[in-house]
């Protein structure tokens, strides 16, 4: 059994979004999906070294999709109704879909609502049992000021990502990011 390593990791926050260039449809995504996608892009991992169906995605969202749910609920009385696009993001797992589409990753995925403490264990487990060769792990902490006021927690908007993979001959570690 080859060793499983954390190949790359990064953290991004809301201030980095305006300069992000991840395709013409990036602006359509909700905040959680934009940050998650930017975090994964910032890993600069060479996903093409793997077959797309051998890369999994594990995502944890500390507050689920509550920030987007709240925005959707607030917009329900607007003329024409709330935004259909916003509706598509009222699922905590929506960011997984965006990551999968953007990076053409078709392996299995898992979504957790809550902290990210299980992410690495689940990713490692999927790799160890041979289900996948690598896994993108993303932890999103998105609490808008409006939601923060409602649930009495600090507002936050950031996402962290890591790329775990089984070491093998077709794989080289990224300098400066090896564990």
């Amino acid at each position, binding site marked *: 059994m080859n060793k499983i390593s954390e190949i790359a990791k990064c953290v991004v926050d809301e201030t980095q979004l305006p300069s992000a*260039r991840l*395709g*013409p*449809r*990036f*602006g*359509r995504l909700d905040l959680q999906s934009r940050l998650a996608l930017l975090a994964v892009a910032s890993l600069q991992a060479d996903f093409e070294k793997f077959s797309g169906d051998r890369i999994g995605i594990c995502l944890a969202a500390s507050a689920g999709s509550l920030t987007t749910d709240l925005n959707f609920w607030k917009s329900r009385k*607007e*003329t*024409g*109704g709330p*935004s*259909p*696009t916003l509706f*598509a993001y009222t699922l905590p797992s929506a960011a997984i879909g965006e990551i999968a589409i953007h990076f053409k990753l078709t392996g299995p995925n898992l979504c957790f609502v809550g902290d990210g403490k299980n992410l690495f264990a689940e990713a490692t487990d999927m790799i160890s049992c041979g289900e996948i060769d690598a896994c993108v792990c993303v932890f999103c902490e998105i609490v808008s000021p409006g939601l923060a006021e409602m649930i009495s927690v600090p507002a936050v908007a950031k996402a962290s990502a890591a790329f775990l993979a089984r070491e093998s001959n077709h794989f080289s570690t990224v300098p400066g990011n090896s564990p």
Partner: protein
Amino acid sequence: MDAAMQVSTRELKQKIIESLKLQDITPDQIDDEAPLFGTGLGLDSIDALELVVLLEKEYGIVIKDIEEGRPAFRSVKTLAEFIAAKRAA
């Protein structure tokens, strides 16, 4: 048709860009006659729903029958013509 009923394709394109949050695309880059969906601007089914909402919010036009709206959503030009026709009706 009364000039007041006409809809500027440039104005419509700007509204589409804002409504669909299209990044790094200007009205000048959108061909009036290019398909909105699939090829051309490459919009999808969620964008179609967003355009339906746009018509109601910006022009007060409610599309109840999707078959009625389908020909209008071919291009910016057909959409502008549809809006003008609805305003004139």
